[in-house]
């Protein structure tokens, strides 16, 4: 933790995340290695453990995963650090997204835009399936848990496809099953 954070340091934090924003294609997590290099290696504002647990905390909490950036900033300099880091990572990408979505909407009947969104649609679905696979894989590598985890994933898929049970209940049920040692 950077005690009594100087304004210059906050500005530096903000500017660094500002430069990462437009590189964060596929989500801010893709720039995490550079955040690590900057916060842990170069500035020594966070320890290795603090960095890793910031990401773990944000992933355990509800909300978009981008909030790990807020937690990193918080661990560097409290509330103003969280604000500086989030503003930096959000500002350029938000501006670009707004400009791009308006441009695409104005030209939504043009062949180029239609070919783009139709051409990308199969990739979008493929990416979703791949993400599910990549999330599941580490759990399936643990021999003690493999079968129960596989059953839990299959059950989740079935319940999601066949029922309208609230997704949040399913996630919480998974947490309870895990805590009880059943999975």
């Amino acid at each position, binding site marked *: 933790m950077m005690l009594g954070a100087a304004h210059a340091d906050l500005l530096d934090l903000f500017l660094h995340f500002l430069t990462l924003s437009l590189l964060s294609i596929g989500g801010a997590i893709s720039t995490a290695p550079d955040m690590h290099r900057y916060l842990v290696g170069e500035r020594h504002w966070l320890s290795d453990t603090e960095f890793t647990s910031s990401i773990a905390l944000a992933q355990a909490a509800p909300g978009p995963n981008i909030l790990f950036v807020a937690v990193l900033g918080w661990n560097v300099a409290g509330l103003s650090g969280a604000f500086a880091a989030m503003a930096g990572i959000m500002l350029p990408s938000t501006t670009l997204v707004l400009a791009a979505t308006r441009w695409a909407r104005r030209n939504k009947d043009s062949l180029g835009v239609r070919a783009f969104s139709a051409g990308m649609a199969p990739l979008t679905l493929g990416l979703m399936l791949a993400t599910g696979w990549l999330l599941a894989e580490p*759990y399936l590598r643990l021999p003690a848990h493999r079968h129960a985890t596989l059953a839990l994933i299959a059950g*989740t898929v079935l319940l999601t496809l066949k029922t309208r049970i609230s*997704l949040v209940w399913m996630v919480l049920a998974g947490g309870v099953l895990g805590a009880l040692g059943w999975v």
Partner: protein
Amino acid sequence: MSAPAMEPLAAVQRPASLWALYLAFNRLALQGFGGVLAVAQRELVERLGWMTREEFVETLAIAQVLPGPNVVNLSLMIGDRYFGVRGAFAALAGMLALPSLLVLSMAALYGSVARHPVVNDALRGMGAVSAGLILATGLKLLPAVRRNPMGRTLAALLAMATVGAVVWLRLPLPWLVLLLGGLGMAAAWRGLNQGPGKA
């Protein structure tokens, strides 16, 4: 016939106000443990009916290739579509305001994450369910490419190739967009040129 009593199939609802937009995104963000995408599909397409399955996939396709988290980009795009910049920020605020307060309070309370074995076990169970949710969402949305101008066979092959490229080759997203995306766009372009209006 002044009051259509039939179940609306294509008739898409829309947010009544900025506040409704804020609440909807707040609600879906707070339900998103281990990823918001599955909840976003459930809420926006199935519960609220603000988008069709096809619109969801196509908006997500654009949100995905732009920098920034795809669900955050999705919220900006949907908000902007209904209420312009104010809508974009209402949706963004819904997505981030309360969840960041929550995660920062957790950070303040724990300092760093409590590393109890029970917490680890619970997180593993939650992680497995999150994986199942995103798989199921992908499967549920597959029919959205049935009417894709490139043809359903090619679309299905391209989706499978994407899974392979990500899971086995670990191809980074920019390459994926350039290679498979380029192929998809070329095929869609060709399909659109050949038969306008042909499903």
